């Protein structure tokens, strides 16, 4: 009943903010777009190279494969963590909170480093297994694609926990009680009531994780040891190690357009509130 009337006064108030948003977000991106068409010379040359260069192509395919595996791994783990967070005892909640929030805020690097300490040839796992006599040569756990997937999954879990936990939290406790009262077992309730009611959060989490994984750079660079080059890293290599700024810019533009398309798709299925927990 209470209509929000947008008065002209309100629009005047908002104008400087909109100007700021444009300057902070739109203009820098336009700079990248310009570079992609002008470096080293004006034209579509960089986009043509992007379509034909077999190195670039193979990097794109590897990126896609890793991102899909990571998304699946993240969703399963994040669902479990969100479940403990939302429905566990108060001690379990605190523990889950700690596990989710602390790594979320500690730099990517410090955590990737933690994983190296676990997985590298000189790391905990190999040291333990060797000293226990289980293996004689260290296992190749880090600095390859497996390392990338473990590291990325670990990094992305918190981003998926939030939307899933939010969906779980919005479930009416009485709906679950009602199912129990009708004689349904806990397993049945979980699969036929609880999980379907969290689909919104799951879809949101899947899109967030996939998009984020696409733009992933730091963890693969460290854990993959340069052998699992992914798209975002390619941008970095092209810009800072070779002087090929134009191709780097072109890759950036393609990445942004792809992510934009995914977002547009997503808007049709779920509300933004689901995405941000």
């Amino acid at each position, binding site marked *: 009943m209470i209509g929000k009337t947008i008065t002209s006064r309100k629009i005047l108030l908002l104008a400087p903010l909109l100007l700021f948003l444009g300057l902070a977000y739109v203009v820098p991106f336009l700079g990248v777009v310009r570079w992609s068409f002008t470096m080293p010379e004006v034209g579509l040359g960089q986009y043509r190279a992007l379509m034909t260069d077999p190195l670039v192509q193979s990097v794109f395919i590897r990126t896609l494969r890793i991102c899909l595996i990571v998304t699946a791994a993240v969703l399963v783990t994040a669902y479990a963590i969100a479940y403990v967070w939302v429905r566990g005892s108060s001690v379990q909640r605190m523990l889950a909170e700690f596990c989710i929030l602390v790594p979320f805020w500690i730099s990517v690097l410090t955590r990737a480093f933690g994983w190296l300490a676990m997985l590298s040839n000189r790391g905990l796992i190999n040291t333990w297994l060797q000293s226990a006599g289980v293996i004689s040569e260290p296992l190749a756990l880090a600095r390859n694609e497996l390392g990338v997937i473990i590291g990325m999954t670990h990094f992305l879990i918190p981003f998926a926990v939030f939307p899933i936990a939010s969906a779980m939290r919005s479930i009416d406790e009485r709906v679950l*009680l009602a199912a129990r009262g009708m004689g349904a077992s806990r397993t049945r309730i979980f699969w036929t009531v609880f999980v379907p009611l969290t689909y919104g959060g799951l879809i949101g989490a899947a899109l967030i994780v996939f998009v984020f994984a696409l733009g992933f750079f730091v963890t693969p660079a460290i854990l993959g040891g340069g052998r699992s080059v992914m798209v975002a890293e390619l941008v970095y290599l092209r810009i800072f190690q070779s002087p090929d700024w134009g191709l780097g810019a072109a890759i950036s533009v393609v990445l942004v357009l792809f992510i934009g398309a995914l977002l547009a798709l997503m808007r049709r299925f779920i509300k933004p509130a689901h995405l941000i927990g």
Partner: protein
Amino acid sequence: MPQSMQPGDAKAAEIKAVSIGKTFGAFHALKNLSLDIGRGEFLTLLGPSGSGKTTFLMILAGFTAPTTGRLVMDGKDITDVPAEDRSYGMVFQGYALFPHLTVEQNIAFPLKVRGRSSADVKRKVGEMVERVGLIGHEKKLPAKLSGGQQQRVALARALVFEPSVLLLDEPFSALDKNLREMMQQEVKRLHQETGTTFVFVTHDQSEALALSSRVAIFNHGELLQVGKPQDVYERPSNRFVAEFLGEINLLPLDTVELNGETAAGKFEDRTIVLNKSITLAGKKAVAAVRPEHMFISASPQTSDCNAITCRVEGATYFGASTKYHLRTRSGTSLAVSMPTASTSPIAPQSDVWVSWPVHQGFLLPDGG
């Protein structure tokens, strides 16, 4: 109507609650409560919020374990039987429908849980949809239904597997007045048709009086009185029950003498004669009379009536009835409710007689 749902069906259960107690930390939600729920009866648990009525329902349902005491159903101890094995129907406050399932799927859920054949499920769901008047809405999601329709789905879902007991937790609190009355009639009809034992929780005393075969009144975790609607309304055992079930006038009496079937006491120098509903061993007491049992007149009514003088302070119009606010000579305030049509208007500030039949007044202990 299917054979198995005839009134008096053996499927209706009787439940005995014996010395049930429940504490949450230091808070005593229920105190040593014993109550027998008869086979096929419509029992209402009535009380203000926090009185323990919902806790008791949750213990009956098996969602909450009692701290002390036992529950016995048809002679079997069910205190430790989990909710999913009790198979009671339950209608929750706010309906608690499955939002991702259609009307049909919601109603079919308890049957599928029981592994009924799909033909059986289809037939029973069809019957139930018809019985609660939801034909044409089978494929809709709950969000597309009105409040009353959602309520009907909740009832259908709770009754479709022919439970021996149906528990209802303030099912009408979200409905507006007209719809609430319609749904009350619906529930009453379903109770008569199914013959199932209904246990109904509400804080609305007129709903309790209108629907139930018996009413159990709760306060502060204690069961204060159980009885037929007429009994609890007209012969409340204490002041809380008397006041919670409707407005009541309380006249402090100086001395009370018991006298066979009646009791007599003094109020403002007049002798008030009352029914002797409770035995008061020489204690102070109050005479209690409901506003609709009193009437206003220019001269005192004498035949089997008590009468006192009052001054009219105001009136509130309620359509069917008008409530007069009065004050006795000693300052006690009184309310008298009379059918609007029955009287010529009574002028404010006039002095009048307020009378009531002897059998309509009763004694209550002073201060409790």
